[in-house]
């Protein structure tokens, strides 16, 4: 039944050898998901809000507890994503009073804004299309935080040597042939792991097989250029805090502007030649008015 187990096994078989680093996308084309893309599928109708995945994520990623004092006790109780929390379960209510749990973590966008932002490739889409962060490259400029439409990357505001923290799909577990921690512990299989195209097919199968149960749309299929984490839900996605991004990734527009202006640095080079000639001529015409310069 579970798509994720099959894929996990296949990944082990491949020995993680499918390590194809996805190069930076050029121009204004919208990239398709990489062929080896993996992801998560979260189903709001199955989640019981037990938060086991939140604890498991903490543990698997060796994050310190998010301590909070309430009354007379000290609790490990994160309320939102943060530098110590890569995964959170929230409860949302729509206008009709229907409630739904919602799992938040990195969406592993097909065309990630965070990676488009990062000056020197600390954040990049790497093997299996997972958007990963490399400490050695990060200068902690936080442009990725400004850019991410889902507000996922978090920053260690109290650290002397701060890191960017976000879900990396438990790539260290995948490398060992295991499934992501949140998937492994979920008692209801509300979140499953697998190849993106198989998850997408599974999501559509669920929607089709029980008409009326789900909103007839898989969030992440095309939203914001597509994401590798997919959602099916019984209440409207915007009520779950998922933004309406349209089908185009913001990075497509940003690249179009950047490359439209620069034309592979031909435009600035040409402008420089022209400016050089004009300044040379005009400086002669004005006369070297810096008279003291020649003194």
């Amino acid at each position, binding site marked *: 039944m579970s798509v994720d187990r099959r894929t996990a096994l296949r990944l082990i078989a491949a020995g993680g050898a499918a390590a194809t680093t996805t190069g930076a996308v050029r121009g204004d084309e919208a990239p398709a998901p990489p062929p080896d893309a993996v992801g998560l599928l979260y189903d709001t109708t199955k989640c019981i809000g037990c938060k086991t995945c939140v604890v498991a994520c903490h543990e698997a990623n060796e994050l310190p507890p998010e301590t909070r004092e309430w009354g007379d006790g000290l609790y490990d109780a994160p309320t939102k994503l943060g530098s110590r929390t890569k995964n959170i379960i929230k409860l949302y209510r729509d206008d009709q009073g229907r409630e739904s749990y919602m799992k938040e973590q990195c969406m592993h966008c097909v065309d990630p*804004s965070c990676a488009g932002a990062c*000056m020197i490739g600390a954040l990049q889409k790497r093997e299996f299309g997972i958007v990963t962060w490399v400490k050695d490259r990060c200068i902690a400029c936080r442009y990725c935080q400004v850019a991410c439409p889902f507000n996922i990357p978090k920053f260690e505001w109290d650290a002397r040597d701060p890191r960017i923290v976000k879900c990396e799909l438990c790539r260290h577990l995948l490398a060992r042939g295991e499934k992501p921690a949140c998937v492994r512990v979920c008692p209801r299989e509300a979140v499953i792991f697998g190849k993106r195209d198989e998850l997408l097919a599974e999501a559509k199968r669920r929607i089709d097989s029980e008409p009326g149960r789900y909103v007839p749309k898989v969030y992440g299929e095309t939203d914001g250029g597509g994401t590798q984490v997919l959602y099916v839900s019984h209440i409207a996605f915007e009520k779950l805090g998922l933004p309406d991004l349209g089908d185009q990734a913001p990075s497509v527009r940003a690249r179009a502007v950047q490359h439209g202006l620069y034309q592979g640095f031909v435009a600035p080079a040409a402008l420089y030649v022209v400016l050089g000639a004009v300044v040379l001529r*005009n400086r002669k015409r004005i006369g070297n008015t810096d008279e003291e310069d020649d003194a």
Partner: protein
Amino acid sequence: MTHVAQPLGGPLLTRGYRVLLGMAGIALLLIAWRFAAGLGAVTGLNDGYPWGIWIAFDVVTGTALACGGYAMALLVYALSRGEYHPLVRPALLTSALGYSIAGVAIAVDVGRPWFIHRIPLRPDLWNLNSALLEVALCVMAYVIVLWIELAPVFLRRWAAGGETGFTRFARAATRGLNRAMPFIIALGILLPTMHQSSLGTVMVLAGPKLHPLWQTTFLPGLFLVSCIGMGFAMVVVESSLAVLAFGRRPETPMLGRLSRAASITVALFLVFRFGDLAVRGQLGALFAAGRYSLLFWLETILFVLPALMFLRATVRRHLGALFGWSCILALAGALYRFDTYLLAFDPGPGWSYFPAAPEILITLGFVAVEVALYVAIVKRFPILGGPSARSGRVEVTA
């Protein structure tokens, strides 16, 4: 009349100057605290608003206010308006200081500045899709270019004196620089054209988090045109301040003509701004209730008023009026940048940002250092043109 620039002379450590140094000292202590305790300890920044006033003011607005050197170089060298030449050097100095301070502000703002050198030194890691990379590289290069453009001022002073190895070097360097200068000046026009527009491109990637009145693929064009207008305005502001603070002879007619150039730039900006909104079908949002349309109209009024005022001969002949309206124009450009980077940026419900006191004090410290360096340099080096009103060589202009 000649415009031989000369040092102002006079004592350095006045009372006002001590205040500036005190502010810089406080900022320095707070910066030490920031590096010891992390950014969260001294700022109001958070995961929703990861960029605050250090970026929006010190870097994005600060470099635009420091575009006087760029705007004047465009006018004098690209458009061949030689008559403005006396304004170039003081403008270059404020530009060099403004950009250098912005560089320091970036180093304080990023979490791991000890890796900044990798940006210029590791082209193999470059992400050419990142507008911020372009900004970073161009700003670094431009700071160097600005100081090279100013170098003759310092070299000449050091070249004076006996035949030592150092004076010989200073003279040779001056001659070499003079020959290379056209190509350095051309770089000094190219680099701001690139990074001031890229500062706009940076926010294109913020996508839906930036309000549609500001979010447009036209951001680079709007940022570029507005920084030139701000550059002209700041040249007028700084020249008037030099009259006030140092008793320089007013260059009112020249500044009046310059203000007309500012008017033209603003007109261009407004055509782009409204044209873009019309093309994107966002004109309706201008009349929606709420703070965004309010901010937009405030911006627009601040742009329009000085541009109209500069068309009036009475304003152009009056130094005080030129100064006041130029301040307002600079404010307009500053607000446009603040809106784009902070006030019209909304990461979603649950997030808010207000700068913390240490954060503000550090920014004030940066400004103080800038002013202090400016004063010290114009007192000791030949930057400001024209005879001093106090020197007795003045023909007093009405």
